[in-house]
């Protein structure tokens, strides 16, 4: 890993200022399945691209790096998700929707560039993703009245999606299939940029 340059730090500062200036708060995309809070929580991931795509991106990222990285992220993300979500349930504070786009750009970009991160870095990034999106989920569950049951449902979905997606990427052996995964990562970045454009309109 290269140390961040001063130009990089400036870019991060500008991005942070832009995010804080974004007027739009995180919106709940909760679907009422009629099957109870657990199922509502499980379905939440499927209908929330702001969560689904970053989770898919980190699954691809760890899948590209191999089994050990995948195993480390597989436990880190859901645990961070539930812990941060629990905080979000208890202290719901609106967070700008644009914060989720950081995940799109960061994780999609890492996949597209096929960056060879160490396992320690993967754990840190997985914890950060779990904490950010888990907190937002906790906030949404609090607003929707789904509580901890809904949060556990969404974390279970994250675990299942990450398990299936990372194992699929790990099992890819033909060269072009790994390139296809990187292309998918660039699409996540593209979607993130589109959403930034949408939020600025």
């Amino acid at each position: 890993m290269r140390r961040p340059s001063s130009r990089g730090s400036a870019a991060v500062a500008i991005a942070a200022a832009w995010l804080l200036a974004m007027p739009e708060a995180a919106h709940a995309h909760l679907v009422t399945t009629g099957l109870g809070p657990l199922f509502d929580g499980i379905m939440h991931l499927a209908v929330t691209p702001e969560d689904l795509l970053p989770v898919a991106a980190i699954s691809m990222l760890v899948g590209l790096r191999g089994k050990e990285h995948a195993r480390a992220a597989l436990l880190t993300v859901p645990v961070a998700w539930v812990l941060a979500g629990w905080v979000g349930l208890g202290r719901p504070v609106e967070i700008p929707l644009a914060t989720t786009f950081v995940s799109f750009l960061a994780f999609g970009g890492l996949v597209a560039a096929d960056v060879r991160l160490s396992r320690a870095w993967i754990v840190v990034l997985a914890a950060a993703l779990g904490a950010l999106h888990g907190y937002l989920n906790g906030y949404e569950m609090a607003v929707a009245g789904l509580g901890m049951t809904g949060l556990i449902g969404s974390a279970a979905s994250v675990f299942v999606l990450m398990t299936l997606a990372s194992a699929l990427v790990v099992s890819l052996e033909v060269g072009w299939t790994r390139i296809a995964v990187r292309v998918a990562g660039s699409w996540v970045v593209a979607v993130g940029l589109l959403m930034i454009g949408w939020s600025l309109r």
Partner: protein
Amino acid sequence: MAAYAALAIALPKGVAGHDVRPGYLELREQADGTFAVVWKQPTKSEVPLEVDLVFPAGCRVSGVRQETAADGQVRFHARLTCPEGLTDQTIRLAGLEGLQTDVLVEIHYTNDTKETHLVRPASPSLVVGGAPSVIDRVFAYLGLGMAHIALGVDHLLFVLGLLLIVRDRRTLIKTITSFTVAHSITLGIATLGFASAPTVPLNAVIALSILFLGPEIVRVWRGQTSFTIRHPWVVAFAFGLLHGFGFASGLTSMGLPQSEIPLALLFFNVGVEIGQIVFVLLVLALVRSFRTLEIRWPRWVQAAPGYAVGSLGAMWTIDRVLVLMGLA
């Protein structure tokens, strides 16, 4: 078995098998423009759930009478008079939004046309006007079947128990096919009215079928064998017949008219099968993924699904037998 019983007693009461029955509202237009109303409230554990019918302003309900059917279900009959008609008016099912069940609404007109609505908690009202197409009804019954299996934790646990016993792909296909064929037979028989099973003993026996798989799973762990382990498809077929009667409750409790039954039966069953296949494929895909990622779970995590099957089966069996004996 003693461990199962102890776990069962320790588990919270909230964890229960699904015996939620959807509600049914029928409005039949009379020659004088009024509507004959039949209302069956949704029930949970045979107890009616609080759902109030809110008819459009200007409509008047009269002649309300209560009737208890042979199966113990309570129906309300009434007459609905709407001077401005019902077309484009909204009927609300107040309280449904807080429940986890649906209400099937059928409106029969004097010109022999009919409109059907499946009202869900997410949108607990309907706008009268225009009979929905066959496609709409097909999707409604498909959704009802999928929701029934998704909420049917007891049915899914039985399938999970079978998956934990089966050792190879050929036996798996045979076993799941046997279960599907068996429950389709009794679902059809019960929905068409050729046979029925009393709910309380049926629920007890379905719970017993899950408990039955618990010791078999332990035998598999120990490398032992039994008739069930050698021929799981036979057990899947036998207990599948019982589970079919359980599935049928999702349809028969609606009191569907004869003309609607073939369509409802076919697509409700297809919905159940889709839900079951999705569950089986998801479990198999997860197991395969764990193997690919070389995840070695601690022994207690590996044993957890088996203990969940056995202990929940024990809990439901005890609970439902107590209900059967009138002790709970």
